[in-house]
């Protein structure tokens, strides 16, 4: 792993100078700002049953399913196409180092963008401190729990994006397949949550629990951290990254 740091710096540099990074950041900021304003506009302290932060973070899936494919699509696909891959692997670097560097750089961008959403809370908080305190508008714990869950689920989503990017030379295909996989993931999670007959089957119950994304998000925002969810997403991320390493190795025919 001695080349990991060099490769990580290279990937970060690539993200910094790429115009598409700024495009993704702009789309993300606009969409997250719009959601924030819409929810804030309709939020009334008297009628609300849950804190504002929890309500806001429930909308995380929409920016995420758009952002993750856009961040990860170029990781491998672009380099396969331009054959930079050849010069990259002509020196003594391992496939695992390359995959990990690409994953962590994309994940770092994912985290930075989500952390930037805290500015919105900060701005509203500064404007109306008294109201916030009074109505538990968005306690620090709600926000921390929401961000923690997004960071956790982000490892899985970004690793899925990296995996699909490692399979194809076409960025568009990589982007679309990642997008539809994430959409399917949310739909399945929602179906499990809605259909209590399936999800309450004793064997299936504990396995399907982490897939109920929205109830997990609520739990994290309320300060309940389910260890099954943590293990599920971290192990799934490792699995997706291992699959990416194998896919990159398979490119050496």
């Amino acid at each position, binding site marked *: 792993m*001695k*080349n990991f740091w*060099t*490769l990580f*710096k*290279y990937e970060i*540099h*690539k993200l910094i*100078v*790429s115009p598409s990074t700024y495009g993704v950041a702009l789309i993300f900021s606009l969409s997250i700002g719009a959601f924030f304003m819409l929810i804030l506009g309709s939020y009334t302290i008297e009628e609300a049953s849950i804190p504002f932060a929890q309500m806001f973070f429930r909308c995380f899936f929409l920016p995420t399913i758009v952002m993750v494919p856009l961040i990860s699509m170029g990781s491998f696909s672009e380099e396969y196409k*331009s*054959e*930079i*891959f*050849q*010069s990259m*692997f*002509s*020196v*003594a*670097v*391992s496939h695992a180092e390359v995959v990990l560097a690409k994953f962590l750089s994309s994940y770092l961008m994912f985290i930075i963008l989500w952390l930037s959403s805290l500015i919105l809370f900060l701005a509203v908080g500064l404007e109306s401190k008294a109201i916030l305190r009074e109505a538990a508008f968005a306690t620090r714990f709600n926000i921390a729990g929401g961000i923690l869950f997004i960071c956790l689920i982000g490892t899985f989503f970004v690793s899925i994006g990296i995996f699909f990017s490692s399979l194809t030379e076409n960025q568009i295909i990589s982007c679309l397949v990642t997008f539809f996989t994430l959409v399917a993931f949310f739909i399945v999670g929602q179906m499990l949550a809605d259909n209590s007959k399936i999800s309450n089957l004793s064997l299936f119950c504990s396995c399907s629990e982490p897939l109920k994304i929205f109830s997990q998000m609520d739990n994290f925002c309320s300060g309940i951290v389910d260890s099954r969810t943590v293990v599920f997403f971290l192990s799934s991320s490792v699995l997706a990254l291992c699959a990416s390493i194998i896919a990159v190795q398979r490119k*050496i*025919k």
Partner: protein
Amino acid sequence: MLENDAIVVSNLTKKYGKTVALNNVSFSVKAGSVVGLIGPNGAGKSSVLKILTGLIRGTSGDVSIRGISVADDAICAKKYISFMPENNPLPDHMRVGEYLRFRAELKGISGKKIRASTEKVMRQCDLYYEARYCMIKNLSKGFRQRVGLADAMLGNSEIVILDEPTIGLDPLQIMGVRKIITANRGTRTILISSHILSELEPICDKFIIINRGNIVASGTLDDLANDLQGKRLFSARIRGDGAKIRRVFEANGAQIAGFEHLSSVDMRVNFCMPDEKYRILVAEISREEDLFLEKIGRMEFSLEEIFLHYTRRCRDQDEVWNGDL
């Protein structure tokens, strides 16, 4: 295996589906030598080089770099290699200096030496003053080639593999490449693949001619010339009818390598034939009343002629086999 063999390729076969790109290829390269790998398009040169650098795997056979099998431990073998791929892919988002620093770090050059090493190769490849701060995406083809070459020469890799390094370079830059390669002779093993044979001729110690996935000849220029089945290359200047000249030469077993009309009646013929038949041919031409032999003499085989001989022989053999079928 000799102790000083830097590269050993044994019975290497590479198949892409049903297509056989390399067929039981074996050769070795001595440490410190400069070897040219030549062959027509699609001969399998790039496949050999990519297998040597661990970028693709051979179907069967073995490739070892300094005694380390590339198939068993590619990462360890790559520590001895610098490779410049054929189309020289470079990341467009970096500056030349940044890219070379990045490559130096990947090659394990220690932090203190990175600056000195990158500056040295940039000076060698004429990049230091003109292109050090340029974005790679803005570079011309020639400059990109020089960046690739600088990358290959960076560090202390014992083996440098260059796939078509002079494509897109002007004559002055080609001379610069020659100078760099010559300066590294003896200290590094250099394997170069190129189509431009005149560039390889003065710098290579040994040549490997590959055609249709097979090694058809290998050795020094003298070895290859002597190996042409005892044939010699001759050049004659003859006055007379072109068609008749061809007829007489071919009837006496001469293999015509070049036929040039100097004027309507003056022809220059380069031909190849065994020494003993040469005198008979001269006597035959003298006997013809309408042919006047102005000048005839022996020539040295150039690499191009040797290359053409071996690759043409393969083609002729194929044609004979196809004809038999």
